[in-house]
């Protein structure tokens, strides 16, 4: 620190210790420099200047006497701001020759009022999709500079700041909100505060404005790779502060950019840009019909088609990497929810609404002609929440070039039995630990595009909650592969006979109830067949034993009655 002082030299009679002390304390290289007040005698317009605690001479250090030379050296900001200068030297602003003072008011640093928009007010952001959202929610540096930290902060406001219980948010108590828990939170809010609550998202990016780059960050950084906004926090709901970690995918959709078009379903099948983008006009259904005429003919007579409610691209994103069959129940529901926003409250009549929407897609009930299947997936429960096993995770734990289908279907009958599934599951669990489990959902596996009108939908609980539910004849194990999901048929008794710990979260429909065919298998088949039938019985033994005991009690009572009648008692 350089001190500004005004002292007379000490007395010559002082001994040498005092002289030394005097020199150390009071004498500095700036000794004899000018005071700011001296400068202001001529430069009145700099009266009231503020730049830290610096004086004029600290920056204009070539002024040693007054009056000074006509032309002074340009002050070097990097003398004090070396670190900033080093960052700035790599920025686009530096390359364009912008000097510090063009943004910074050097003499009145507290009165700075120049921001990005001061110069870039007319930037059109022509190539930026969904401009309204990007430009209002993000700061410039979120895309135009390397970020030092970034986070999505979400809070939910409820009128009257009503409290929401911790158990309604972080159900597994791991201080992390995953996709499943968030869908429950949304259901809870819809059912209790319909139309009155608001989910607020803040995209906070910390960056150095001096590091503005010439090219903005690619879309992948946020929407695929999550290098930016890769963390999220649920700060509060209603009047309660929670500050829980959350899965950023819940608040920032996965949208691939054009650069990754080749990874999309269309791209993989060799469709090139010009096949669809034949003009500058917006893509219409007429373009899709070129390849998907049969589907469209079916769709145009459906309620959606007749009312012109939705174009192909309203539901289908042609640039999406995942195909429809690779989407899970929640991702599929999200497509319909883009228009049917109040789907939760309109299904308040449905018991366990959130649970249904977690395991089913809309088409499970609203597309009676579509084929539905019960799909099993391998999933993990970690401190980060619950998630399905990805291709990368499978690849890491299985031997190179593994044929998963062959590993599963050991007897080669093209159907995976519970015994085969259990063996494979145990192999995976050796590598991944006990947090591995089998999850399931009931989804459409063959889409019939006639999504139906009100009144023509499945509202009978017993359509699913019955041992005769159609999806018991269409069950698949879904294995993530590099090219998309692999669907391997599963024998219909797989769930009931699985050891409990494998699939403890699977909800029960009708599969665990004893069926006539189980009885036939137990009674009629040979020793080997009976052994297999017993192995696949699973929890159905409860019905079997219950039924046997009921028959026994009935017989005993009947015998007692007969004896009473015979002995006239």
């Amino acid at each position, binding site marked *: 620190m350089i001190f500004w002082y005004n002292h007379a030299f000490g007395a010559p009679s002082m001994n040498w210790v005092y002289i030394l002390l005097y020199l150390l304390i009071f004498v500095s290289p700036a000794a004899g420099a000018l005071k700011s007040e001296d400068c202001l005698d001529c430069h009145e317009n700099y009266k009231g200047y503020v730049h830290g605690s610096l004086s004029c001479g600290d920056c204009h250090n070539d002024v040693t006497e007054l009056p000074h030379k006509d032309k002074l050296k340009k002050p070097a900001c990097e003398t004090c701001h070396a670190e900033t200068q080093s960052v700035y030297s790599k920025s686009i602003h530096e390359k364009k020759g912008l000097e510090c003072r063009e943004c910074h008011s050097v003499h009145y640093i507290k009165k700075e009022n120049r921001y990005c928009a001061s110069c870039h007010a007319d930037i059109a952001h022509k190539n930026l999709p969904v401009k309204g959202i990007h430009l209002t929610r993000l700061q410039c540096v979120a895309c135009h500079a390397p970020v030092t930290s970034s986070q999505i902060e979400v809070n939910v406001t409820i009128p009257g700041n009503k409290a929401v219980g911790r158990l309604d948010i972080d*159900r597994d108590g791991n201080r992390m909100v995953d996709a499943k828990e968030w869908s429950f939170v949304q259901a809870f809010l819809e059912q209790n505060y319909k139309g009155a609550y608001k989910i607020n998202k803040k995209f906070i990016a910390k960056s150095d404005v001096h590091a503005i780059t010439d090219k903005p960050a690619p879309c992948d950084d946020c929407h695929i790779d999550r290098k930016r906004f890769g963390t999220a926090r649920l700060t509060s709901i209603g009047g309660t502060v929670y500050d829980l970690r959350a899965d950023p995918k819940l608040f920032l959709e996965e949208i691939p950019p054009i650069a990754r078009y080749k990874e999309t379903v269309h791209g993989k099948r060799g469709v090139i840009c010009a096949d669809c983008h034949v003009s500058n006009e917006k893509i219409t259904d007429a373009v899709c019909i070129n390849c998907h005429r049969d589907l469209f003919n079916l769709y145009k007579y459906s309620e959606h088609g007749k009312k012109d409610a939705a174009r192909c691209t309203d539901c289908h994103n042609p640039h999406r990497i995942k195909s429809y069959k690779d989407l899970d129940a929640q991702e599929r529901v999200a497509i319909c929810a883009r228009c049917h926003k109040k789907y939760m409250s309109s299904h308040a009549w449905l018991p366990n609404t959130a649970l249904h929407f977690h395991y089913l897609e809309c088409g499970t009930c609203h597309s009676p002609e579509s084929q539905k299947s019960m799909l099993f997936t391998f999933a993990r429960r970690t401190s980060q929440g619950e998630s399905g096993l990805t291709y990368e995770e499978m690849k890491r734990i299985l031997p190179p070039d593994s044929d998963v289908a062959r590993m599963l279907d050991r007897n080669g009958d093209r159907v995976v039995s519970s015994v085969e599934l259990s063996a494979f599951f145990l192999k995976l669990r050796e590598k991944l630990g006990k947090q591995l489990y089998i999850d399931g959902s009931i989804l459409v596996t063959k889409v019939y595009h006639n999504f139906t009108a009100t009144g023509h939908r499945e509202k*009978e609980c017993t359509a699913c909650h019955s041992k005769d539910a159609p999806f018991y004849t269409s069950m698949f194990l879904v294995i993530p592969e590099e090219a998309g999901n692999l669907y391997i048929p599963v024998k219909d008794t797989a769930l009931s006979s699985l050891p409990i710990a494998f699939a*403890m979260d699977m909800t029960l429909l009708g599969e665990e109830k004893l069926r006539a065919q189980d009885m036939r298998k137990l009674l009629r088949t040979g020793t080997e067949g009976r052994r297999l039938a017993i192995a696949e019985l699973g929890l159905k033994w409860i019905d079997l034993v219950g039924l046997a005991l009921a028959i026994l009690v009935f017989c005993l009572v009947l015998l007692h009655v007969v004896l009473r009648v015979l002995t006239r008692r």
Partner: protein
Amino acid sequence: MTRVKLYTLPIRIWHWINALLIFLLILTGAQLRVPGLPFFGHYSKAVWLHKYMGFCMVGSFIFWLVYVLFSGSLRSHYLMRIRDVRGMVRQAMFYMYGIFRGGINPFVPSPENKFNPMQKMAYFTVMVFFTPAILVTGILFSDILYFAPYINALGGLRILDALHVVFAYIFLLYLAIHLYMATLGHTILAHTKAMILGYEEEEGGESTEGGEVGRETEEEAIT
């Protein structure tokens, strides 16, 4: 014929309300287990009824528990004693053999000792173990999402379902035996009438203390 007051009015009201609830719960439960059964029409009605009848049963159980605890009858009527073990054998022999030979029931109920050893064992087990167990598993089922941590701690939804169904079968078997045994009074409807009117009519001119036949009595008998 002796008339012995066995059941107080609150207990009689509780018994019949509880009987109605159990009857409805078994029927709705059967429809949930076997969806094709036509008891209550739409499946969702059965779900609704089963859920709310279950809550009513919780209330009914709490009433019973408070009543037997404060009246002291849990100790006097439900708790098994060592002599009851011998009595249980004798009682079982009577039901299996003696009853057909015209033998006398070795147990005569009284206000101080209402239940024979077999009844004691059955009622104590059902009311102290199986009823709370089926109610707790039912409550967990009533809101799967809300109770998810507890359900997971228990072993998951499939375990919960298995337990609830096992308890339901136990209840069903118990009910079948209970209803049949109710016809084993000195007339077919004697025990049922006692549970309606509160008085059990007993054969013989004198009232007896609850317990095995032939003991002296000090209880007040209304003749």
